[in-house]
């Protein structure tokens, strides 16, 4: 804003700048306008308009019980702070097993015991969510293990290929592996 810096014969551009410099910031309004569709689609996603999540994985039979699994977002794991990349899965228990299932867990790789069954799902059995840590060194052909614990003390497990649970995660892992 030092006046001595301005050119001696004002160009068309500098005239424009001097005329409109205080109005250009109105353009900042384009930012929220541009993000409006994204905001609304996010709100719809959280409202459950698209069901459990962006991509339905399908019904998985776990012993006598079953659950419906979905990727909340159809995308690679997101880095959330120091905990590293996390993948958000949602699930719904079958109507008849709601009263019998005590807890639902998710883990990449087979759990050695119930105590290491992985992350536990939170929320209503109609729509529960879990944030699954996905270490970047995970093999792309890994399996996703679902563990259900019953109120009677029983435990049932099932697994599906990670590629089936989340193709976006596997694609991301392959890309990670390509890096030195």
């Amino acid at each position, binding site marked *: 804003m030092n006046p001595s810096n301005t050119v001696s014969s004002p160009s068309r551009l500098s005239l424009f700048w001097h005329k409109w410099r*205080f109005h250009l*910031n109105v353009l900042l309004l384009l930012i929220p306008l541009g993000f409006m569709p994204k905001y609304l689609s996010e709100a719809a996603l*959280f409202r459950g308009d698209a069901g*459990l999540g962006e991509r339905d994985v399908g019904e998985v039979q776990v012993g006598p019980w079953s659950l419906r699994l979905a990727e909340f977002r159809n995308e690679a794991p997101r880095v959330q702070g120091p905990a590293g990349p996390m993948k958000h899965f949602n699930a719904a228990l079958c109507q008849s097993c709601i009263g019998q299932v005590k807890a639902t867990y998710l883990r990449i790789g087979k759990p050695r015991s119930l105590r290491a069954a992985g992350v536990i799902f939170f929320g209503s059995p109609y729509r529960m969510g879990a944030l699954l840590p996905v270490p970047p060194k995970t093999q792309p052909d890994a399996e996703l293990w679902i563990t259900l614990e019953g109120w009677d003390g029983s435990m049932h497990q099932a697994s599906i290929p990670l590629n089936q649970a989340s193709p976006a995660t596997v694609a991301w892992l392959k890309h990670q592996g390509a890096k030195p």
Partner: protein
Amino acid sequence: MSKKSRSKLWFLVHSWLALPIWFFVLIVCVTGTLAVVSQEIVWLANPDMRASKPSDEAPLLSYDQVIAAIKQAQPQTQVQSIIRPDESHFALEVGVTYPDGRPDTVYVNPYSGVIQGSAPTFNFQAFTRALHGWWLVPFTNGYSWGWYLVSFLGLPLLASLVTGLVVYKRFWKGFLRPTLRIRHGARIFWGDFHRLSGIWSIWFIAVISVTGTWFLIQALLGDNQISISSEPVIPVVARENVPLSVDGQAPPQLNLDRAIEIAQQRIPGLEASFISLPGNAYSHLEIGGRGWYPLMFQTATINPYNGDVAASRLLSDRTTLEFVTESMRPLHTGDFGGLWIKLIWFFFGLLLSMMVLSGLLIWTKRTALATANAFKRSQKPNRGARIAQALQPSVHRESSEGSL
């Protein structure tokens, strides 16, 4: 530097603080003002949100009665949380999930337990807050850059307050002899308006700018994984404390009213204004409400099987630093003392928006004059000198006017 040129410099700083981004600042002020009363606006627009009393002496239902009423009306619906808003004219907000997997917030009458309706799909409250708070820029990893963009404005706002008081000589006289000249033209009117509303808003601008700057600091701390919290991480309910059942069905849990009694024994004077039910078999029931210090919530975390208080977070558990930092948000939003505080915040929010606008009007009127003067001297050889001259008269005029 002479006293005069110093005040000129202060004046220039004051003028330039908001000017290049005045419209952005204005919209942030306006959306913030709207956000203060967004809950009330929804209340006006949506009758479902109102807590109409069926009769004058109708008592408030207890939380258990509310749950029972919902169970009776919709046996399949699962309740996750109940919020009793601060003002008694608002219905309860109950977080539920339907069997088809859809989460919802429903408004429940606190006297009759009737489910009055679902929250509208377009959440006006959340939208105004998102627009004001982070310019709708999504959060993907840590704080959104929109949050930084908006919260950064706390600094120029604070600087505007300080420089404004410096250039407005003996501003305290404005309290004793308020001046608002209406019949002397727009330039004089907006100048008087800017100064008059400025001195009466000193406290408000200070509060908003300091708390706004805190939001910036909060984001910087958060994104750098620096925590100032003294709050312990509460472990889940131990496996052995979750009873097994012989019939394979979930064991009974503590009823809510009993849990609130337990919480109130631990936290005397607690008014349970929100309840969050256990998220799974190994998680706790959480009960919270305000205490004597209205800006913060106190919470009790209770084992839903045996009623043990696993943890509690009282006012006295906060460090001095947390007392200050946790007060920042309510001070910014004005949602800590019912409708009247909100209306005060709303009024001063409007005034602050008008100050941004009047500041701009003053500048454009002055710049228009200065430009006209500059054109008169357009034959002069050096354009640089011309602009310098164009700026001079305005500064002279304002600093002499500031001492009026």
